[in-house]
């Protein structure tokens, strides 16, 4: 993981700068000052990630190669997707996302095999499947971004604007966070638990796509046309993804606590520590996301806090994890109570993410079923 000052790192950062420069010169007429800042900011963020995490560099380069290949194949004409073999079966956004949706379940199965047979080969296979699925899914979103502009320039928008798109985002971000920790704590055993939650999301995604035709690209309603969306939504999903991982690790913790699978899973201290770390990461990002949401709301709705159901549930989620952190950090509490708490936390989070859209109405205007 540590080759910070290698040639590869320098090359990667150079590449990011070139890409951003290209985007700036080609598309600056479509961007306002804030969007340009976001673009430049993202160069720093991705450089930093790549600097500390070699595989992220590979990942990033792969998604861009795939996305560019797709754009090249499209030749600016959306209907080519019907005729071109590669686009139709691999590199149209929908196909790429479907590949992602096939590979995640596969990786779940392999992780479970690996859990019991502990062979390096199965572990490596499972991780690689997650990498490939994530790469395809991310390129799928990037390609979808491009496709939205092909439909019509004024329809074009970043693909994190409806429930379908954010579900894909959830799968991708959760996988990335997981795989980072997998490398860091050097165990592939947890994949068997974490891939469960990702595959639940995949299941929902498939149902939503096939039953409701949700993958159609729709134009943005005026309230969503804001640069804030580009930071608020990803930050939120880093939070959601981390909380989901925390709940799954807590599940593993409870199982080990019961004395089951102890010879297969990491020990309790490791699980406990990882739960804490992801909740801490999630809490920081969720705080930022909620604040950005308030800033955005101030601009779109005329008030930074309207007690809209989504806002209110974000507050509830936030309070929940603040309480969790208090208990652990101040009271020094450890053990199964906190594990149960973080599992219940996932239900609260899920209600904030989905339940609010399904059951409560409010100002948040996307993602009705």
């Amino acid at each position, binding site marked *: 993981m540590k080759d910070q000052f290698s040639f590869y790192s320098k090359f990667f950062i150079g590449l990011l700068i070139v890409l951003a420069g290209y985007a700036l010169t080609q598309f600056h007429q479509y961007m306002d000052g804030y969007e340009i800042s976001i673009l430049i900011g993202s160069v720093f963020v991705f450089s930093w990630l790549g600097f500390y995490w070699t595989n992220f560099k590979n990942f990033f380069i792969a998604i861009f190669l795939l996305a560019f290949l797709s754009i090249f194949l499209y030749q600016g004409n959306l209907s080519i997707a019907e005729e071109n073999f590669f686009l139709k079966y691999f590199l149209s956004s929908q196909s790429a996302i479907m590949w992602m949706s096939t590979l995640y379940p596969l990786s779940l199965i392999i992780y479970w095999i690996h859990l019991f047979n502990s062979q390096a080969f199965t572990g490596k296979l499972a991780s690689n499947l997650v990498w490939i699925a994530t790469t395809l899914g991310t390129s799928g979103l990037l390609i979808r971004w491009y496709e939205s502009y092909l439909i*019509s320039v004024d*329809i074009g928008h970043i693909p994190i604007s409806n429930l379908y798109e954010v579900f894909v985002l959830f799968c991708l971000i959760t996988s990335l966070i997981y795989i980072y920790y997998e490398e860091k704590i050097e165990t592939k055993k947890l994949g068997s638990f974490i891939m469960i939650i990702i595959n639940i999301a995949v299941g929902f995604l498939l149902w939503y796509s096939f039953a409701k035709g949700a993958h159609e690209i729709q134009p943005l*309603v005026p309230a969503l046309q804001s640069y804030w969306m580009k930071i608020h939504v990803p930050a939120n999903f880093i939070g959601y993804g981390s909380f989901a991982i925390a709940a799954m690790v807590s599940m593993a913790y409870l199982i080990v606590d019961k004395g089951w699978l102890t010879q297969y899973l990491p020990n309790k201290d490791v699980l406990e*520590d990882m739960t804490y770390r992801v909740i801490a990461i999630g809490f920081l990002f969720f*705080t930022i996301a909620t604040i950005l949401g308030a800033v955005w709301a101030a601009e779109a709705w*005329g008030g930074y806090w309207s007690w809209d159901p989504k806002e209110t549930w974000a507050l*509830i989620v936030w309070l929940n994890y603040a309480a969790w952190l208090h208990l652990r950090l101040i009271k020094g509490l450890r053990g199964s109570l906190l594990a149960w708490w973080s599992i219940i936390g996932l239900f609260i989070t899920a209600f904030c993410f989905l339940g*609010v859209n399904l059951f409560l109405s409010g100002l948040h205007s996307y993602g009705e079923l």
Partner: protein
Amino acid sequence: MSSMRFSITMLSFVGIASIIGTILKQNQPYESYMVKFGQFWFDIFKQLDLFNVYQAIWFLTILIFLIASTSLCVIRNSPGILKEYKKFQDQIRETSLRSFKHCYEIHLPSFNKLELIALLEKSNFKVREKINASGDILIVAKKGSFQKLGYIFTHLAIIVISLGGLLDGNLILKTQELLGYKEIQIQDIPLSQIPNKSRLNQGNFSYRANVLLSEGEKQEVAIIPSKDGYLVQELPFSVGLKNFHIEHYSTGQPKSFESDLILTSKKTGKTTEQKISVNKPYTYEGVTIYQSDFQDGGTKLNIMVTDLHSDDAPQPLKSEVFKSNAISYLDKALSLEFEDFRLFNILDIDNSQKKKSRNVGPNFTYKIRNESGQANEYQAYQMPMKLDGRYFFMSGMRETPQEDFRFLKIPADSEGSLEGFMIFKQLLLNKKKIESTIKKIILTSEPSKSKELNANNLELSALKLFDTFQKGGYNAVAFSIDKNIPSKNQEAAANAYIKIIHLVANQLLIDYQAEKPLNRLFDFKDLPLFSQDALNAYSDSFFYGTSLFLELKDFEHVQASGLQLTKSPGQFWVYLGSMMLVIGIFCMIYIQEVRLWVLKKKGRKNILLSITTNRHHLAFDKFAADIKSKINLLKT
């Protein structure tokens, strides 16, 4: 009160109250709650302020307690923390050092103080050394002291955010209301008659108020909705709407809402023009103006009123949305109340394609109210819509707002207008024409059949049939069959009657076309299909609640823009607090506080290394081991 338990309890209360507030939809009209919960529960809920949880006194009280508790906590803990932050613990005794989990004895005969200090400083430690009387050297080092400040930052942030929120929470208005200085206006009365008790002057430092402006209109006050009524807020300027535009995507969904405003300061009399849109508000004289919604602003409508059940000539009518017109019909006074007009309507009607919605053009909504005050609601589309490959004018009716509209489908003629159907209706109501057409059909029909049947009889019954149809459509025909024909013959009779009606109706059109060869209204490939659609429409009109059909000829669109005007002095503090919160959380979670001591007793070859932290994470074990091995390396 500054205990963790107290504040966690308060936090749980906030959580539970918030959940109630999201489950019970807030700030709805009180009647709708009444209908939903019944008088008994409505009264209880109202007493508890459950319809406006977040503005309730009890909710604000909890918030104030929370602030107080957190403040006390910060006041109590901060001095200690600041002291800790500055302090190097150099009074520590050897026994304490040995009690730490990470305590190592390292054999280091060539102890070099400077080398060790340099090493520690390279690892970002702040270092201090102390030599006591007996010549023992104690090196004290620490890093990550900011972690402790994180506590102050986060908790102070929560206080700042809550205070900012309270500043915008209308606390003063609440107090004034409680003391009876101000009163929420419940009645819907003209602005000029609203008493001072329900008016707030320009000095009000925090509000969120609404203004609805038609194009060309100007206002100097705004409305603050509050519980089941409202208050009137005086503005420091007048706001006028020059123009309102909606832009649409090619698919018809709205893309942007924009208002061109004219703002005139009351103080200086200066006028400013400014465009605002969703996500692009504008701040003028301390008040921020947002585009919040839009509606009709009294569109002018040119309408043609036709009686479908008589051959009276159609009557033109001029009206506006939000206006009502009195008309008399069959000696009864009716009122036509125009309620809404929409230029764009995105519908998903074409079932041949999956999920393709498109714009079907303007519609308008009106009520027809009779003398006893009862009213049906109508919604009519100006343009014909394509259904099953044919075009129909759709006009919906419902008796109560809970129902869906039931649509009368009038077929468009081949020019896409209503004229063809109106001609058809005139022909259908023309007794003479019908009679001659029936005769003609009987004569030209197959001779063998006409011999068997009594032509006269047939003609008579056909005429009667048409009479019945004119008066009540297929339903009346069915009714008469039910009454007059034995049940075993009913089906055959019904089939025969329908055939006759279709034949005659079609013939009426053919003859009309022959008389007026220049007319292009009935150029259909399948004319019988049109005449059947027209017959259906005529027949359905008996279920339309009225025989008056309103056709929208043209209109002059007037829109109204909904603005929100806010003054929010707390916003600055909320944002400042938010920044502190993020910094604080970062410090608290991601900075690891580490303290380290190296004790070198005079004359000994060993040193004592102790490392400790206030938060024990797994990574710390690694970190400690790392430092230890680095120090170990100093041997060489």
